[in-house]
């Protein structure tokens, strides 16, 4: 029996076959690249931890990142679910980094923040993952923004304020503030909260070392 092209039977069979074919092809492509994607994610995390500790920069090769990570960074037991902690000794001093995920405007923001165990001064901040508005809030991942937190003194309230400024980056490392991204004040507020939470986690871990 031959089905007519517009009959219900044909439509159902055609749609099912086409959906199955494309889904199988996508699943195949996903499966083939899965190991590579996971390796990329792991590398991105290792690089961000080292960058936050000031032990890597964009010039550092992938091999150097992996060898530095295994020799200089110690993964600490998870202080709480969803929070990862790392320890590194730079010079004679120990420093702590935490990987923290906190809400953003459109989705979670995952960042790595490194600081001294008393959380008095930030060593570095790296944004690992975010879904903020491209071109506006999405600019929190740019170097001019994250570099503002490098060596920044933490305020007595345990915060670094992220407020409207020139939009070019605040160079003062002693004023416990950073310039917000122009046109993305809500995202900047979320970063301020994330940094405060990360500093509180560092302080807690530092106290138990």
């Amino acid at each position, binding site marked *: 029996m031959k089905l007519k092209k517009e009959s219900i039977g044909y439509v159902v069979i*055609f749609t099912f076959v086409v959906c199955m074919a494309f889904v199988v092809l996508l699943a195949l492509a996903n499966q083939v690249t899965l190991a590579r994607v996971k390796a990329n994610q792991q590398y991105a995390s290792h690089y961000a931890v080292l960058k936050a500790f000031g032990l890597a920069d964009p010039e550092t090769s992938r091999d150097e990142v992996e060898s530095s990570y295994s020799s200089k960074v110690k993964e600490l037991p998870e202080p709480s679910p969803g929070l990862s902690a790392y320890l590194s000794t730079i010079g004679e001093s120990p420093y702590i980094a935490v990987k923290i995920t906190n809400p953003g405007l459109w989705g979670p923001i995952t960042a790595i923040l490194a600081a001294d165990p008393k959380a008095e001064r930030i060593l570095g901040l790296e944004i690992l993952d975010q879904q903020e508005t491209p071109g506006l809030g999405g600019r929190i991942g740019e170097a001019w923004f994250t570099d503002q937190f490098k060596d920044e003194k933490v305020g007595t309230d345990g915060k670094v304020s992220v407020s409207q400024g020139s939009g070019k980056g605040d160079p003062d490392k002693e004023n416990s503030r950073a310039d917000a991204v122009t046109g993305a004040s809500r995202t900047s507020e979320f970063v301020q909260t994330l940094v405060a939470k990360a500093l509180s986690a560092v302080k807690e871990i530092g106290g138990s070392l």
Partner: protein
Amino acid sequence: MSPTRKVLKDGLWTNNPIFVQVLGICSTLAVTNNLRNTLIMVLGVTFATAMGSLTLAFMKDVMPRKVRMIVTVLIHSFYVIIVDILLKAYQPAISKQLGPYVGLIITNCILMGRAEAFANANKPGLSFIDGLANGLGYGWVLVCIAFIREFLGFGSLLGIKLVGEGFTPWTIMVMAPSAFFLVAIFLWGANTWKAKASQGGQKK
């Protein structure tokens, strides 16, 4: 003029998706404050439109009319997700920068527009060229707008700083309103030019 040349000229100029069909405006507003993101978006849209139109033209004779739109969306989603998977695996840095952009290509009206207006009624080869021409027609307008917005908004191109510290960035250029008036200026300029050209042609 050969059909291939006509299809190419239509996509790039005569029937340009931005200033004649007025399609793909959402992404024009969203991505053009950064030239690098614009280029990746253009490549993604061009690939998805060309390959989507090609696949659809192959399938059009066996596809029931009732489900043609849902199948068209499925085909475009397939190509866009393939681009996303490949970027994640082989260009993770670009994939990270683009974030949600890639997935948004599926909703670009040019893809559905060309599928409905051309690929549903033409041969696969010509449909592929139509998709390619429309992707590139969309692309050159976007690149022009992104060039102006990134240069005036950040004082840079492709992220490379081109002006000194004394330059005051035009903050409005980074934000969505600037794209509205730049697109409008492009629409006005291109349509005025085309109207004058057709009047000149008639006089002759």
